[in-house]
């Protein structure tokens, strides 16, 4: 498992560095070359139902250089607390995760009541979407191990887990968020084309 984590981390770094080299390789304007840029990455609010995993995730966020506010909240309280936290932090990316499981005894795979915490995740996503309805203004990742993927996506999350009801890795949400956070808002070639047109 440690090896998998390292692999994923390495792949991410590789991707990010390649991208930054590619961008540097094409200065869009002669004047621009002399001015150095600063880069701003989005604010992340991470709400977790497990304080140990939260700690681990925050370490990785820091390693990847993301701005993060982590909060330990019990799954059942998430729908209530998500609005207060969002007003306080004003995040660009919201991560809702914790523990979840599907039990066959309780019902069919389609029935959300057969899942331990999926209903709270869905409710929390709905609350967050009430606050910020646009899918572009706020990116939401929700879900945990064996969560009901379909209803979380339908509630308005951009990313969710888990389509085949397997146990996801605790750090997977962090990689997804990092990828979103480091994808540039604009493609560089648009600027290149504009400066050529001038």
């Amino acid at each position, binding site marked *: 498992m440690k090896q998998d984590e390292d692999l994923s981390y390495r792949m991410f770094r590789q991707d990010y560095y390649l991208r930054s080299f590619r961008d540097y390789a094409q200065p869009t304007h002669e004047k621009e070359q002399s001015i150095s*840029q600063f880069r701003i*990455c989005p604010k992340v609010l991470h709400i977790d139902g497990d304080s140990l995993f939260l700690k681990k995730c925050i370490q990785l966020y820091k390693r990847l250089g993301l701005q993060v506010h982590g909060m330990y909240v019990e799954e059942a309280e998430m729908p209530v607390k998500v609005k207060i936290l969002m007003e306080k932090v004003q995040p660009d990316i919201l991560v809702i995760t914790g523990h979840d499981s599907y039990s066959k005894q309780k019902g069919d795979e389609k029935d959300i009541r057969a899942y331990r915490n999926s209903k709270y995740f869905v409710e929390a996503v709905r609350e967050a979407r009430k606050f910020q309805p646009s899918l572009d203004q706020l990116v939401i990742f929700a879900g945990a191990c064996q969560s009901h993927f379909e209803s979380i996506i339908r509630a308005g999350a*951009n990313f969710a887990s888990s389509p085949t009801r397997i146990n996801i890795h605790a750090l*997977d949400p962090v990689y997804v968020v990092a990828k979103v956070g480091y994808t540039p808002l604009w493609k560089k070639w648009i600027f290149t084309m504009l400066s050529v047109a001038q």
Partner: protein
Amino acid sequence: MEKVDIYDVVSRTITREKGIGGIETKGLFRVGLPYMKELPITNEKSKDE
């Protein structure tokens, strides 16, 4: 506008498409000018370092 390549996202996680799924999303990373010391820093080094 650059979208986040979902295939790319999924292939970079540990449990892959079996564990994570999503919809097309806009990238959120912004570049600004000029660079000064107190400005928000990411883990990337500035150009002249």
